[in-house]
Protein backbone atom coordinates (compact mmCIF):
# COMPACT_ATOMS: atom_id res chain seq x y z
CA UNK A 1 0.00 0.00 0.00
CA UNK A 2 1.32 3.40 -1.01
CA UNK A 3 1.06 6.50 1.18
CA UNK A 4 -1.21 8.05 -1.41
CA UNK A 5 -3.74 5.27 -0.73
CA UNK A 6 -3.79 6.13 2.96
CA UNK A 7 -4.24 9.93 2.71
CA UNK A 8 -7.87 9.89 1.68
CA UNK A 9 -10.79 11.77 3.25
CA UNK A 10 -12.56 8.54 4.20
CA UNK A 11 -9.56 7.42 6.23
CA UNK A 12 -9.45 10.64 8.25
CA UNK A 13 -9.70 9.95 12.00
CA UNK A 14 -8.47 13.28 13.34
CA UNK A 15 -7.66 16.71 11.98
CA UNK A 16 -6.64 19.97 13.51
CA UNK A 17 -9.32 22.64 13.66
CA UNK A 18 -9.60 24.82 10.54
CA UNK A 19 -9.00 27.96 12.59
CA UNK A 20 -5.57 26.71 13.63
CA UNK A 21 -3.33 27.74 10.71
CA UNK A 22 -0.10 26.16 9.46
CA UNK A 23 2.32 28.65 11.03
CA UNK A 24 5.07 26.92 13.04
CA UNK A 25 4.43 27.52 16.73
CA UNK A 26 7.27 29.08 18.69
CA UNK A 27 6.43 27.16 21.86
CA UNK A 28 8.96 24.81 23.48
CA UNK A 29 8.47 21.03 23.34
CA UNK A 30 6.19 19.95 26.18
CA UNK A 31 4.56 23.37 26.60
CA UNK A 32 0.82 23.35 27.32
CA UNK A 33 0.05 26.41 25.18
CA UNK A 34 -0.18 24.44 21.92
CA UNK A 35 -2.87 22.13 23.27
CA UNK A 36 -4.90 24.97 24.81
CA UNK A 37 -4.65 26.95 21.55
CA UNK A 38 -6.08 23.95 19.73
CA UNK A 39 -8.96 23.67 22.19
CA UNK A 40 -9.81 27.37 21.85
CA UNK A 41 -9.79 27.05 18.04
CA UNK A 42 -11.92 23.89 18.14
CA UNK A 43 -14.55 25.36 20.43
CA UNK A 44 -14.90 28.59 18.42
CA UNK A 45 -15.15 26.50 15.25
CA UNK A 46 -17.72 24.09 16.68
CA UNK A 47 -19.83 26.90 18.12
CA UNK A 48 -19.77 28.64 14.72
CA UNK A 49 -18.48 31.85 16.28
CA UNK A 50 -15.52 32.64 14.01
CA UNK A 51 -17.11 35.84 12.72
CA UNK A 52 -18.05 36.86 16.26
CA UNK A 53 -14.84 36.08 18.12
CA UNK A 54 -12.48 38.78 19.35
CA UNK A 55 -9.56 37.45 21.39
CA UNK A 56 -7.22 39.48 23.56
CA UNK A 57 -3.65 38.24 23.70
CA UNK A 58 -1.41 38.94 26.69
CA UNK A 59 2.19 39.86 27.24
CA UNK A 60 3.90 36.57 27.91
CA UNK A 61 4.65 33.48 25.83
CA UNK A 62 1.17 33.56 24.29
CA UNK A 63 1.64 37.09 22.97
CA UNK A 64 1.77 35.60 19.47
CA UNK A 65 -1.41 33.53 19.79
CA UNK A 66 -2.72 35.76 17.01
CA UNK A 67 -0.22 34.16 14.65
CA UNK A 68 -1.81 30.71 15.12
CA UNK A 69 -5.58 31.07 15.47
CA UNK A 70 -7.28 32.76 12.52
CA UNK A 71 -9.73 35.06 14.28
CA UNK A 72 -9.60 38.79 15.05
CA UNK A 73 -7.27 39.71 17.90
CA UNK A 74 -6.05 42.58 19.97
CA UNK A 75 -2.70 42.45 21.71
CA UNK A 76 -2.96 44.08 25.15
CA UNK A 77 -0.38 45.76 27.36
CA UNK A 78 0.92 43.55 30.17
CA UNK A 79 -1.94 42.67 32.50
CA UNK A 80 -4.56 44.86 30.82
CA UNK A 81 -6.37 42.26 28.71
CA UNK A 82 -9.52 42.17 30.92
CA UNK A 83 -9.87 45.97 30.58
CA UNK A 84 -9.80 45.70 26.77
CA UNK A 85 -12.21 42.77 26.88
CA UNK A 86 -14.64 44.63 29.19
CA UNK A 87 -14.87 47.57 26.81
CA UNK A 88 -15.14 45.45 23.66
CA UNK A 89 -17.91 43.27 25.06
CA UNK A 90 -19.88 46.30 26.24
CA UNK A 91 -19.48 48.00 22.85
CA UNK A 92 -20.20 44.78 20.92
CA UNK A 93 -22.56 42.69 23.09
CA UNK A 94 -23.10 40.18 20.27
CA UNK A 95 -19.42 39.20 20.11
CA UNK A 96 -17.53 36.38 21.82
CA UNK A 97 -14.86 38.24 23.75
CA UNK A 98 -12.17 36.37 25.63
CA UNK A 99 -8.67 36.92 27.00
CA UNK A 100 -5.83 34.44 27.07
CA UNK A 101 -3.37 35.26 29.84
CA UNK A 102 -0.48 33.79 31.78
CA UNK A 103 0.12 33.87 35.52
CA UNK A 104 2.36 36.94 35.53
CA UNK A 105 -0.02 38.85 33.29
CA UNK A 106 -3.22 37.87 35.10
CA UNK A 107 -2.20 37.29 38.71
CA UNK A 108 0.56 39.86 39.14
CA UNK A 109 0.64 43.01 37.04
CA UNK A 110 -2.99 42.65 35.99
CA UNK A 111 -4.53 41.59 39.30
CA UNK A 112 -6.69 44.72 39.54
CA UNK A 113 -7.98 44.46 35.96
CA UNK A 114 -8.69 40.74 36.40
CA UNK A 115 -10.57 41.03 39.69
CA UNK A 116 -12.58 44.07 38.65
CA UNK A 117 -13.61 42.66 35.27
CA UNK A 118 -14.72 39.42 36.94
CA UNK A 119 -16.42 41.29 39.76
CA UNK A 120 -18.37 43.50 37.34
CA UNK A 121 -19.69 40.31 35.83
CA UNK A 122 -18.45 41.24 32.36
CA UNK A 123 -19.78 38.67 29.91
CA UNK A 124 -16.32 37.56 28.92
CA UNK A 125 -14.10 34.52 29.40
CA UNK A 126 -10.62 34.64 30.83
CA UNK A 127 -8.39 31.69 29.98
CA UNK A 128 -5.63 31.57 32.54
CA UNK A 129 -2.48 29.56 31.85
CA UNK A 130 -0.81 28.90 35.19
CA UNK A 131 2.65 27.35 34.86
CA UNK A 132 4.04 28.99 38.00
CA UNK A 133 6.85 30.76 36.16
CA UNK A 134 7.62 33.60 33.75
CA UNK A 135 8.38 31.71 30.55
CA UNK A 136 8.99 34.45 28.01
CA UNK A 137 11.43 36.52 30.02
CA UNK A 138 13.50 33.47 30.94
CA UNK A 139 12.11 31.67 33.96
CA UNK A 140 11.66 34.24 36.73
CA UNK A 141 9.40 33.89 39.75
CA UNK A 142 5.66 34.22 39.18
CA UNK A 143 2.96 35.09 41.73
CA UNK A 144 1.93 31.43 41.45
CA UNK A 145 5.44 29.95 41.87
CA UNK A 146 5.22 27.19 44.51
CA UNK A 147 6.93 27.37 47.89
CA UNK A 148 10.51 26.16 47.60
CA UNK A 149 10.40 26.19 43.80
CA UNK A 150 13.60 27.60 42.28
CA UNK A 151 13.46 30.21 39.51
CA UNK A 152 15.89 32.76 38.04
CA UNK A 153 14.80 35.34 40.64
CA UNK A 154 14.43 32.96 43.58
CA UNK A 155 17.35 30.64 42.77
CA UNK A 156 17.33 29.04 46.21
CA UNK A 157 13.61 28.48 46.10
CA UNK A 158 10.57 30.63 46.94
CA UNK A 159 10.50 31.58 50.62
CA UNK A 160 7.57 33.01 52.55
CA UNK A 161 9.68 35.62 54.34
CA UNK A 162 10.97 37.00 51.05
CA UNK A 163 8.18 36.42 48.58
CA UNK A 164 4.95 35.63 50.38
CA UNK A 165 2.65 32.85 49.30
CA UNK A 166 1.63 31.55 45.86
CA UNK A 167 -1.54 33.39 44.85
CA UNK A 168 -4.69 31.36 44.26
CA UNK A 169 -6.45 33.70 41.85
CA UNK A 170 -9.06 31.16 40.84
CA UNK A 171 -10.18 30.68 44.45
CA UNK A 172 -10.47 34.47 44.73
CA UNK A 173 -12.46 34.64 41.48
CA UNK A 174 -14.91 32.01 42.74
CA UNK A 175 -15.86 34.31 45.62
CA UNK A 176 -16.74 37.25 43.37
CA UNK A 177 -20.45 37.83 42.79
CA UNK A 178 -19.87 38.62 39.14
CA UNK A 179 -18.44 35.25 38.12
CA UNK A 180 -20.72 32.66 36.55
CA UNK A 181 -18.24 29.84 36.05
CA UNK A 182 -14.84 29.34 37.64
CA UNK A 183 -12.90 26.17 37.02
CA UNK A 184 -9.40 24.74 37.16
CA UNK A 185 -8.34 22.25 34.49
CA UNK A 186 -5.22 20.78 32.93
CA UNK A 187 -4.21 19.30 29.55
CA UNK A 188 -1.66 16.63 30.52
CA UNK A 189 -3.76 13.58 29.52
CA UNK A 190 -6.36 12.89 26.85
CA UNK A 191 -9.06 12.79 29.52
CA UNK A 192 -7.92 16.10 30.99
CA UNK A 193 -7.85 17.68 27.52
CA UNK A 194 -11.48 16.63 26.92
CA UNK A 195 -12.56 18.06 30.27
CA UNK A 196 -10.68 21.28 29.59
CA UNK A 197 -12.42 21.59 26.23
CA UNK A 198 -15.84 21.16 27.86
CA UNK A 199 -14.89 23.85 30.39
CA UNK A 200 -13.86 26.33 27.67
CA UNK A 201 -17.08 25.61 25.81
CA UNK A 202 -19.22 26.20 28.89
CA UNK A 203 -17.38 29.46 29.58
CA UNK A 204 -17.88 30.65 25.99
CA UNK A 205 -21.58 29.70 26.13
CA UNK A 206 -21.95 31.69 29.35
CA UNK A 207 -20.22 34.66 27.69
CA UNK A 208 -22.65 34.57 24.78
CA UNK A 209 -25.70 34.05 27.03
CA UNK A 210 -24.94 36.96 29.31
CA UNK A 211 -24.56 34.70 32.35
CA UNK A 212 -21.61 36.62 33.80
CA UNK A 213 -17.85 36.36 33.75
CA UNK A 214 -15.90 33.14 33.44
CA UNK A 215 -12.44 32.06 34.48
CA UNK A 216 -10.88 28.86 33.15
CA UNK A 217 -7.51 28.20 34.75
CA UNK A 218 -5.35 25.61 33.03
CA UNK A 219 -2.59 24.31 35.29
CA UNK A 220 0.22 24.01 32.78
CA UNK A 221 3.79 22.93 32.27
CA UNK A 222 6.81 25.00 31.34
CA UNK A 223 9.42 22.35 30.66
CA UNK A 224 12.02 24.92 29.56
CA UNK A 225 11.45 27.19 32.55
CA UNK A 226 11.32 24.28 34.95
CA UNK A 227 14.42 22.83 33.25
CA UNK A 228 12.84 19.39 32.75
CA UNK A 229 11.98 17.09 29.87
CA UNK A 230 8.32 17.22 28.78
CA UNK A 231 7.62 13.88 30.48
CA UNK A 232 9.32 14.96 33.72
CA UNK A 233 7.44 18.24 33.63
CA UNK A 234 4.05 16.52 33.41
CA UNK A 235 5.00 14.24 36.28
CA UNK A 236 6.26 17.18 38.39
CA UNK A 237 3.06 19.09 37.70
CA UNK A 238 0.87 16.21 38.87
CA UNK A 239 2.95 15.69 42.02
CA UNK A 240 3.58 19.34 42.99
CA UNK A 241 1.16 21.68 41.26
CA UNK A 242 -2.08 19.72 41.62
CA UNK A 243 -1.93 19.46 45.45
CA UNK A 244 -1.70 23.26 45.72
CA UNK A 245 -3.91 24.01 42.70
CA UNK A 246 -6.51 21.20 42.82
CA UNK A 247 -8.44 20.57 39.61
CA UNK A 248 -12.21 20.84 39.20
CA UNK A 249 -15.05 23.35 39.09
CA UNK A 250 -14.90 25.91 41.89
CA UNK A 251 -18.13 27.63 40.94
CA UNK A 252 -20.88 26.99 38.42
CA UNK A 253 -23.89 29.25 38.76
CA UNK A 254 -25.89 27.22 36.22
CA UNK A 255 -25.72 24.18 38.54
CA UNK A 256 -26.67 26.25 41.56
CA UNK A 257 -29.76 27.40 39.65
CA UNK A 258 -30.71 23.81 38.82
CA UNK A 259 -30.54 22.73 42.45
Amino acid sequence: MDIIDIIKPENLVYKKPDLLNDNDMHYCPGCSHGVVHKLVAEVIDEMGLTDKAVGISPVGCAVFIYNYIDIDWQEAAHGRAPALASAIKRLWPSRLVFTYQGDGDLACIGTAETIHALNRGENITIIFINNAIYGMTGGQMAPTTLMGMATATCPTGRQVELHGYPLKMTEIAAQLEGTAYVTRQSVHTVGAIRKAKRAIKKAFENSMNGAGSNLVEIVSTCSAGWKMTPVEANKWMVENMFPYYPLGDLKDKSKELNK
Partner: protein
Amino acid sequence: MAKEEVVLMKGNEAIAHAAIRYGVDGYFGYPITPQSEVLETLTEIQPWNTTGMVVLQAESEVAAINMVYGGAGTGKKVMTSSSSPGISLKQEGISYIAGAELPCLIVNVMRGGPGLGTIQPSQADYFQTVKGGGHGDYRLITLAPASVQEMADFVGLGFELAFKYRNPVMMLADGVVGQMMEKLVLPAQQERLTDEEVVARCPWASTGKTKDRKPNIITSLELQPNIMEQKNISFQEKYKIIEQAEVRYEELFCEDAELIIVAFGAMARISQKAIEMAREEGIKVGLIRPITLWPFPTQIISDYANKVKGFLSVELNAGQMVEDVRLAVNGRVKVEHFGRLGGIVPDPDEIVEALKEHFI
Protein backbone atom coordinates in the same frame (compact mmCIF):
# COMPACT_ATOMS: atom_id res chain seq x y z
CA MET B 1 -33.59 63.96 19.44
CA ALA B 2 -31.78 66.93 20.96
CA LYS B 3 -31.48 69.99 18.70
CA GLU B 4 -28.78 72.65 18.62
CA GLU B 5 -29.11 74.53 21.90
CA VAL B 6 -27.66 77.59 23.67
CA VAL B 7 -26.75 76.73 27.26
CA LEU B 8 -24.58 77.88 30.17
CA MET B 9 -22.35 75.21 31.65
CA LYS B 10 -18.89 74.29 32.87
CA GLY B 11 -16.25 73.17 30.40
CA ASN B 12 -16.21 69.71 31.91
CA GLU B 13 -19.98 69.41 31.59
CA ALA B 14 -19.74 70.62 27.99
CA ILE B 15 -17.39 67.73 27.18
CA ALA B 16 -19.93 65.23 28.49
CA HIS B 17 -22.85 66.76 26.58
CA ALA B 18 -20.77 67.07 23.43
CA ALA B 19 -19.63 63.44 23.67
CA ILE B 20 -23.23 62.26 23.65
CA ARG B 21 -24.26 64.64 20.87
CA TYR B 22 -21.31 63.80 18.62
CA GLY B 23 -22.37 60.16 18.77
CA VAL B 24 -19.51 58.85 20.88
CA ASP B 25 -19.83 55.10 21.51
CA GLY B 26 -17.99 54.75 24.79
CA TYR B 27 -16.53 56.76 27.67
CA PHE B 28 -14.24 55.12 30.23
CA GLY B 29 -12.97 57.16 33.15
CA TYR B 30 -11.97 57.43 36.76
CA PRO B 31 -12.77 60.34 39.11
CA ILE B 32 -10.12 62.98 39.69
CA THR B 33 -10.38 66.71 40.47
CA PRO B 34 -10.73 69.02 38.54
CA GLN B 35 -12.44 66.94 35.82
CA SER B 36 -14.84 64.66 37.70
CA GLU B 37 -17.85 66.53 36.27
CA VAL B 38 -17.28 64.73 32.95
CA LEU B 39 -18.11 61.31 34.37
CA GLU B 40 -20.69 62.76 36.79
CA THR B 41 -22.55 64.53 33.99
CA LEU B 42 -22.54 61.43 31.80
CA THR B 43 -23.87 59.20 34.56
CA GLU B 44 -26.54 61.77 35.35
CA ILE B 45 -27.73 61.95 31.73
CA GLN B 46 -27.50 58.14 31.29
CA PRO B 47 -26.93 58.15 27.53
CA TRP B 48 -27.03 54.35 27.47
CA ASN B 49 -30.82 54.75 27.62
CA THR B 50 -30.93 57.14 24.66
CA THR B 51 -28.05 56.92 22.18
CA GLY B 52 -26.77 53.60 23.51
CA MET B 53 -23.44 55.15 24.52
CA VAL B 54 -21.46 52.99 26.95
CA VAL B 55 -20.26 54.80 30.11
CA LEU B 56 -18.09 52.94 32.58
CA GLN B 57 -16.27 54.01 35.74
CA ALA B 58 -13.10 51.96 35.55
CA GLU B 59 -11.07 50.60 38.47
CA SER B 60 -8.18 52.94 37.65
CA GLU B 61 -6.90 55.34 35.02
CA VAL B 62 -4.74 52.48 33.78
CA ALA B 63 -7.79 50.30 33.19
CA ALA B 64 -9.72 53.21 31.65
CA ILE B 65 -7.13 53.92 28.96
CA ASN B 66 -6.87 50.21 28.18
CA MET B 67 -10.65 50.06 27.83
CA VAL B 68 -10.23 52.89 25.34
CA TYR B 69 -7.51 50.87 23.61
CA GLY B 70 -9.86 47.88 23.36
CA GLY B 71 -12.80 49.92 22.13
CA ALA B 72 -10.68 51.86 19.64
CA GLY B 73 -9.36 48.60 18.22
CA THR B 74 -12.93 47.70 17.25
CA GLY B 75 -13.41 50.98 15.35
CA LYS B 76 -15.80 52.56 17.86
CA LYS B 77 -15.61 56.22 18.90
CA VAL B 78 -14.22 55.94 22.42
CA MET B 79 -12.74 58.42 24.85
CA THR B 80 -11.47 59.00 28.35
CA SER B 81 -10.74 62.05 30.47
CA SER B 82 -8.61 62.70 33.51
CA SER B 83 -6.33 65.24 35.13
CA SER B 84 -2.54 65.32 35.30
CA PRO B 85 -1.71 62.50 37.79
CA GLY B 86 -4.26 60.27 36.08
CA ILE B 87 -2.88 61.16 32.66
CA SER B 88 0.58 60.06 33.85
CA LEU B 89 -0.94 56.66 34.65
CA LYS B 90 -2.44 56.49 31.18
CA GLN B 91 0.84 57.02 29.35
CA GLU B 92 1.55 53.31 28.82
CA GLY B 93 -1.83 52.83 27.20
CA ILE B 94 -1.47 55.97 25.09
CA SER B 95 1.84 54.66 23.72
CA TYR B 96 0.18 51.34 22.80
CA ILE B 97 -2.71 53.16 21.12
CA ALA B 98 -0.27 55.29 19.13
CA GLY B 99 1.78 52.20 18.26
CA ALA B 100 -1.29 50.29 17.10
CA GLU B 101 -2.46 53.40 15.19
CA LEU B 102 -5.89 53.63 16.74
CA PRO B 103 -8.25 56.63 16.87
CA CYS B 104 -9.44 57.89 20.23
CA LEU B 105 -9.86 61.05 22.28
CA ILE B 106 -8.12 61.67 25.60
CA VAL B 107 -8.91 64.77 27.67
CA ASN B 108 -6.49 66.19 30.22
CA VAL B 109 -7.91 68.93 32.45
CA MET B 110 -4.50 69.88 33.82
CA ARG B 111 -3.76 70.59 37.47
CA GLY B 112 -0.51 71.57 39.14
CA GLY B 113 2.23 69.03 39.80
CA PRO B 114 4.62 67.33 40.13
CA GLY B 115 3.34 64.37 42.09
CA LEU B 116 -0.03 64.76 43.73
CA GLY B 117 0.61 68.49 43.45
CA THR B 118 -2.52 70.61 43.68
CA ILE B 119 -6.01 70.57 42.25
CA GLN B 120 -5.66 74.14 40.98
CA PRO B 121 -5.16 74.92 37.27
CA SER B 122 -1.86 74.37 35.49
CA GLN B 123 -0.38 73.90 32.02
CA ALA B 124 2.65 71.97 33.18
CA ASP B 125 1.84 68.87 31.11
CA TYR B 126 2.80 70.57 27.83
CA PHE B 127 6.08 68.67 27.55
CA GLN B 128 4.43 65.39 28.53
CA THR B 129 1.81 65.83 25.83
CA VAL B 130 3.68 67.23 22.85
CA LYS B 131 7.14 65.80 23.44
CA GLY B 132 6.34 62.26 24.51
CA GLY B 133 4.76 61.11 27.73
CA GLY B 134 4.77 57.43 26.94
CA HIS B 135 7.67 55.51 25.43
CA GLY B 136 8.64 55.49 21.77
CA ASP B 137 8.65 57.87 18.80
CA TYR B 138 5.02 58.86 18.58
CA ARG B 139 2.99 62.05 18.43
CA LEU B 140 -0.37 63.05 19.83
CA ILE B 141 -2.49 65.49 17.88
CA THR B 142 -3.04 68.05 20.65
CA LEU B 143 -5.96 70.48 20.79
CA ALA B 144 -5.92 73.28 23.37
CA PRO B 145 -9.40 74.66 24.10
CA ALA B 146 -9.64 78.21 25.44
CA SER B 147 -13.38 78.39 25.99
CA VAL B 148 -16.28 76.23 27.05
CA GLN B 149 -17.46 76.31 23.44
CA GLU B 150 -14.16 74.81 22.33
CA MET B 151 -14.38 72.14 25.04
CA ALA B 152 -17.50 70.95 23.24
CA ASP B 153 -16.36 71.62 19.65
CA PHE B 154 -13.05 69.83 20.08
CA VAL B 155 -14.80 66.60 20.99
CA GLY B 156 -16.15 66.64 17.44
CA LEU B 157 -12.94 67.90 15.86
CA GLY B 158 -10.87 65.50 17.95
CA PHE B 159 -12.68 62.44 16.67
CA GLU B 160 -12.63 63.77 13.11
CA LEU B 161 -8.83 64.07 13.23
CA ALA B 162 -8.39 60.82 15.18
CA PHE B 163 -10.21 58.80 12.52
CA LYS B 164 -8.73 60.74 9.60
CA TYR B 165 -5.19 59.82 10.69
CA ARG B 166 -5.84 56.76 12.89
CA ASN B 167 -4.05 58.54 15.70
CA PRO B 168 -4.89 59.35 19.31
CA VAL B 169 -5.93 62.95 19.93
CA MET B 170 -5.34 64.76 23.21
CA MET B 171 -7.52 67.64 24.29
CA LEU B 172 -5.16 69.53 26.59
CA ALA B 173 -7.37 71.70 28.75
CA ASP B 174 -6.73 73.23 32.14
CA GLY B 175 -8.61 73.66 35.41
CA VAL B 176 -9.80 77.12 34.36
CA VAL B 177 -11.64 76.05 31.20
CA GLY B 178 -12.79 72.87 32.95
CA GLN B 179 -14.34 74.68 35.91
CA MET B 180 -15.58 77.93 34.36
CA MET B 181 -19.09 78.37 32.99
CA GLU B 182 -19.76 80.10 29.71
CA LYS B 183 -22.43 80.33 27.12
CA LEU B 184 -22.08 77.74 24.41
CA VAL B 185 -23.97 76.25 21.53
CA LEU B 186 -24.33 72.51 21.83
CA PRO B 187 -24.48 70.68 18.50
CA ALA B 188 -27.60 68.83 17.41
CA GLN B 189 -27.66 65.14 18.29
CA GLN B 190 -25.82 62.98 15.76
CA GLU B 191 -26.73 59.33 15.37
CA ARG B 192 -24.14 56.84 16.54
CA LEU B 193 -22.86 54.65 13.73
CA THR B 194 -24.42 51.20 13.50
CA ASP B 195 -22.15 48.16 13.90
CA GLU B 196 -22.34 47.64 10.12
CA GLU B 197 -21.29 51.24 9.49
CA VAL B 198 -18.37 50.86 11.93
CA VAL B 199 -17.19 47.74 10.10
CA ALA B 200 -17.48 49.54 6.75
CA ARG B 201 -15.66 52.64 7.99
CA CYS B 202 -12.90 50.67 9.78
CA PRO B 203 -12.03 47.60 7.70
CA TRP B 204 -8.93 47.20 9.89
CA ALA B 205 -10.89 46.83 13.15
CA SER B 206 -11.04 43.59 15.14
CA THR B 207 -14.78 43.03 15.18
CA GLY B 208 -14.98 39.34 14.25
CA LYS B 209 -13.37 37.80 11.15
CA THR B 210 -15.76 37.40 8.25
CA LYS B 211 -15.14 34.85 5.49
CA ASP B 212 -14.07 37.43 2.94
CA ARG B 213 -11.04 38.70 4.79
CA LYS B 214 -7.93 37.78 6.77
CA PRO B 215 -7.90 38.13 10.57
CA ASN B 216 -7.51 41.70 11.79
CA ILE B 217 -4.78 41.91 14.41
CA ILE B 218 -4.48 45.05 16.52
CA THR B 219 -0.96 45.17 17.94
CA SER B 220 2.02 47.44 18.43
CA LEU B 221 4.41 44.48 18.60
CA GLU B 222 6.92 43.67 15.86
CA LEU B 223 10.07 41.81 16.83
CA GLN B 224 11.79 42.09 13.43
CA PRO B 225 13.82 45.31 13.60
CA ASN B 226 13.72 45.92 9.85
CA ILE B 227 9.92 45.71 9.79
CA MET B 228 9.65 47.75 12.98
CA GLU B 229 11.84 50.42 11.43
CA GLN B 230 9.58 50.54 8.38
CA LYS B 231 6.59 50.85 10.68
CA ASN B 232 8.25 53.76 12.48
CA ILE B 233 9.15 55.43 9.19
CA SER B 234 5.54 55.24 8.09
CA PHE B 235 4.47 56.80 11.42
CA GLN B 236 6.88 59.68 10.81
CA GLU B 237 5.52 60.15 7.29
CA LYS B 238 2.02 60.34 8.72
CA TYR B 239 3.19 62.88 11.32
CA LYS B 240 4.71 65.02 8.54
CA ILE B 241 1.40 65.09 6.71
CA ILE B 242 -0.35 66.13 9.93
CA GLU B 243 2.24 68.87 10.48
CA GLN B 244 1.53 70.22 7.00
CA ALA B 245 -2.25 69.93 7.07
CA GLU B 246 -3.53 70.36 10.59
CA VAL B 247 -1.87 73.38 12.19
CA ARG B 248 -4.52 75.56 13.80
CA TYR B 249 -4.07 78.87 15.58
CA GLU B 250 -5.83 82.14 16.30
CA GLU B 251 -4.28 85.55 15.66
CA LEU B 252 -5.52 88.67 17.48
CA PHE B 253 -4.34 92.29 17.22
CA CYS B 254 -1.20 91.22 15.34
CA GLU B 255 -1.47 93.58 12.33
CA ASP B 256 0.24 96.54 14.00
CA ALA B 257 1.91 94.61 16.83
CA GLU B 258 5.45 95.28 17.95
CA LEU B 259 5.34 92.51 20.54
CA ILE B 260 3.51 89.22 20.44
CA ILE B 261 2.25 87.10 23.31
CA VAL B 262 2.04 83.38 22.57
CA ALA B 263 -0.37 81.63 24.92
CA PHE B 264 -2.81 78.72 24.81
CA GLY B 265 -5.92 77.68 26.70
CA ALA B 266 -6.93 79.81 29.67
CA MET B 267 -3.71 81.80 29.46
CA ALA B 268 -4.65 83.00 25.99
CA ARG B 269 -7.88 84.39 27.42
CA ILE B 270 -6.15 86.13 30.32
CA SER B 271 -3.43 87.40 27.95
CA GLN B 272 -6.12 88.89 25.73
CA LYS B 273 -7.30 91.01 28.64
CA ALA B 274 -3.69 91.94 29.36
CA ILE B 275 -3.29 93.02 25.73
CA GLU B 276 -6.39 95.23 26.00
CA MET B 277 -4.85 96.83 29.11
CA ALA B 278 -1.38 97.21 27.52
CA ARG B 279 -2.83 98.82 24.39
CA GLU B 280 -4.58 101.41 26.57
CA GLU B 281 -1.07 102.34 27.71
CA GLY B 282 0.11 102.52 24.11
CA ILE B 283 2.02 99.20 24.07
CA LYS B 284 1.26 97.51 20.76
CA VAL B 285 0.89 93.84 21.60
CA GLY B 286 -0.68 91.02 19.61
CA LEU B 287 -1.64 87.45 20.46
CA ILE B 288 -0.93 84.17 18.73
CA ARG B 289 -2.99 81.41 20.31
CA PRO B 290 -1.89 77.94 19.23
CA ILE B 291 -5.04 75.81 18.96
CA THR B 292 -3.02 72.75 17.99
CA LEU B 293 0.01 72.42 20.27
CA TRP B 294 1.16 69.57 18.08
CA PRO B 295 1.44 70.27 15.26
CA PHE B 296 2.77 73.60 16.56
CA PRO B 297 2.13 76.82 14.58
CA THR B 298 5.83 77.26 13.85
CA GLN B 299 5.44 79.01 10.49
CA ILE B 300 3.26 81.92 11.62
CA ILE B 301 5.55 82.60 14.59
CA SER B 302 8.54 82.44 12.27
CA ASP B 303 6.86 84.91 9.89
CA TYR B 304 6.18 87.39 12.68
CA ALA B 305 9.75 87.05 13.95
CA ASN B 306 10.70 89.21 10.93
CA LYS B 307 8.22 91.93 11.89
CA VAL B 308 8.10 92.26 15.70
CA LYS B 309 10.59 93.15 18.43
CA GLY B 310 9.96 90.18 20.64
CA PHE B 311 7.74 87.38 21.90
CA LEU B 312 6.46 86.61 25.39
CA SER B 313 5.33 83.03 25.98
CA VAL B 314 2.72 83.11 28.73
CA GLU B 315 2.10 79.73 30.34
CA LEU B 316 0.95 78.19 33.64
CA ASN B 317 4.32 76.46 34.00
CA ALA B 318 8.02 77.16 34.38
CA GLY B 319 8.63 77.56 30.65
CA GLN B 320 7.70 74.70 28.34
CA MET B 321 6.02 75.99 25.17
CA VAL B 322 8.61 78.80 25.14
CA GLU B 323 11.09 76.24 23.78
CA ASP B 324 8.92 75.71 20.69
CA VAL B 325 8.52 79.48 20.28
CA ARG B 326 12.31 79.85 20.44
CA LEU B 327 12.75 77.11 17.82
CA ALA B 328 10.34 78.95 15.54
CA VAL B 329 11.98 82.34 16.12
CA ASN B 330 15.43 80.81 15.78
CA GLY B 331 17.33 83.61 17.47
CA ARG B 332 16.05 86.48 15.33
CA VAL B 333 14.39 88.40 18.18
CA LYS B 334 14.10 88.16 21.94
CA VAL B 335 11.83 85.41 23.31
CA GLU B 336 10.88 85.54 26.99
CA HIS B 337 8.66 83.48 29.25
CA PHE B 338 6.18 84.49 31.92
CA GLY B 339 4.46 81.89 34.04
CA ARG B 340 2.96 81.19 37.44
CA LEU B 341 3.45 77.79 39.00
CA GLY B 342 1.81 75.28 41.27
CA GLY B 343 -1.79 76.20 40.59
CA ILE B 344 -1.56 80.00 40.77
CA VAL B 345 -3.35 81.74 37.90
CA PRO B 346 -1.99 85.22 37.19
CA ASP B 347 -4.15 88.31 36.87
CA PRO B 348 -3.95 90.17 33.55
CA ASP B 349 -1.95 92.99 35.16
CA GLU B 350 0.86 90.59 36.04
CA ILE B 351 1.19 89.81 32.35
CA VAL B 352 1.30 93.51 31.51
CA GLU B 353 4.05 93.94 34.12
CA ALA B 354 6.01 91.04 32.59
CA LEU B 355 5.74 92.65 29.15
CA LYS B 356 7.10 95.92 30.49
CA GLU B 357 9.85 94.25 32.47
CA HIS B 358 11.19 92.28 29.51
CA PHE B 359 10.56 94.57 26.56
CA ILE B 360 9.91 98.21 27.51
